[in-house]
């Protein structure tokens, strides 16, 4: 399926979505397509809303942000988010804030179709004071009071992977974040892959299948779909862009001209990649293979 069709079919105005990937495998291609299709009133969930959520917020797609750490990892604040929170530009957004463990626990409950998840956390923190969804529960066995967070079941999860077959059985290696939990928790899941491979490649290494095709609703082939984030074994993070984002996002004119040039100004990811040209070659990963294992019996 093309990204255009996947977003058209599975992301609607007012939906809750999650584009996961902890620094690694963040699907910018999907975020850009959501902006191009001018989705509105979205609830966007993510542990670490980074540049792609800053872009969604600054483009006016977002009504509510559910998160645990909002920054430009290693490179400063997110200015479009701050403009929205501090000045209501282009619109104010609601914040629903947890810690990483809280978000992980919410997705784990969502994936297991449990109503909540218990954890030893938040005692003495102000987070429960500003987020009434962080509650406590008493253990029926020991009487211990634990924190509890509600299940998170987004309408749609978008998960970028290194390789998948046409049914969405997906191999992921390197940092795995909460992608598996997000894929199982969401009502619909879009898998976006650097490479589409025959099913036999997936079957040759089943332990590496993080996401099984049976929870996947759409498969999109999108090389360099994570740029400027990275895909282990494919390309490194474009750190110069992350550093430059500070300046681009700080000035609303620069922010808008970035969107005009690189989001609205291209048809799709393929055109974005074509326009990036040789600069992407410098990011290509060197080879560092693992020892094969014997699956025989």
């Amino acid at each position: 399926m093309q990204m255009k069709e996947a977003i058209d079919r599975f992301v609607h105005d007012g939906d809750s979505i999650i584009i996961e990937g902890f620094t690694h495998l963040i699907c910018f291609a999907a975020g850009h397509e959501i902006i191009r299709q001018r989705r509105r009133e979205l609830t966007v969930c993510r542990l670490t809303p980074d540049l792609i959520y800053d872009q969604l917020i600054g483009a006016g797609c977002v009504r509510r942000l559910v998160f645990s750490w909002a920054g430009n990892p290693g490179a400063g604040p997110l200015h479009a988010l701050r403009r929205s929170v501090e000045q209501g530009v282009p619109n104010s957004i609601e914040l629903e804030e947890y810690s990483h463990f809280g978000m992980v626990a919410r997705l784990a409950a969502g994936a297991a179709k449990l109503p909540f998840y218990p954890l030893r956390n938040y005692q003495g923190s102000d987070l429960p004071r500003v987020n009434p969804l962080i509650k406590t529960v008493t253990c029926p066995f020991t009487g211990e009071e634990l924190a509890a967070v509600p299940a998170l079941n987004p309408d749609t999860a978008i998960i970028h992977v290194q390789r998948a077959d046409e049914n969405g059985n997906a191999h992921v290696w390197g940092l795995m974040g909460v992608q598996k939990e997000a894929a199982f928790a969401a009502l619909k899941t879009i898998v976006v892959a650097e490479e589409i491979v025959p099913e036999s490649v997936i079957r040759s290494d089943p332990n590496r299948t993080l996401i099984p095709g049976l929870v996947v609703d759409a498969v999109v082939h999108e090389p360099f779909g994570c740029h400027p984030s990275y895909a282990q074994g494919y390309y490194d993070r474009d750190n110069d862009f992350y550093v430059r984002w500070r300046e681009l996002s700080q000035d609303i004119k620069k922010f808008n001209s970035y969107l005009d040039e690189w989001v609205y100004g291209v048809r799709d990811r393929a055109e974005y990649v074509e326009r990036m040209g040789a600069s992407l070659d410098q990011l290509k990963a060197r080879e560092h293979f693992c020892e094969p294992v014997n699956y025989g019996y």
Partner: protein
Amino acid sequence: MATDFTANELMVCQAARQLRDGEVVFVGIGLPNVACNLARRLHAPDLVLIYESGAVGAEPERLPISIGDPSLVTDSLSVCSMFDVFNYYLQGGLIDVGFLQGAQIDRVGNLNTTVIGDYARPKVRLPGSGGACEIALLAKRVFVIAPQSKRSFPERVDFITSPASRGGPAMVVTDLGCYEFVNGEMVLTSIHPGCTVEQVRDNTGWDVAIAEELKITERPTSEELNLIRDRITGFSA
């Protein structure tokens, strides 16, 4: 000479010296990462570095740019999901030392990385907790490396992101001195070479307690400085 090392280098050395061989450390990027890699090359070769991104036993070849840098994965001992990191490693009680940073730390050791000002109408919106809240509550010891000023050391933080637990952080090191918590209150235990108690008072938002036997912080050795500058790739303080 007081000018032959920077405040960052001194803070890194001070943190590194308090890490024990064989300990399991929840590392952040920046100065904590340098401190852990310094300790690993000196007295703590068996220090295990765990990053919240899921890399366990990481031995990064380059200085990681972010907590999710791909160099943390290559040649690490294990890469696990964040479910495993927070449930089995951190809540499971395996983490000896957790490093925290904060825009503010207060008299009792609470840290703030959420907002300056009121939560609903913040003067400055900061990134939020990330893993900090649970690290503060679940790591056995908490180390804090932070530059010190009246604004960053208020009597009470504007927002408690990461509460003081187990009597407060085990160690706080700033560009002026080192602190420990006695009966739940921050106490200046050593002052850096070239700094004065007056400077400390001028940069603390309350009448800070001073240890009876106030020491002078040990200078970085040339071995420590050489390692930081030459071997711990790309670091400049």
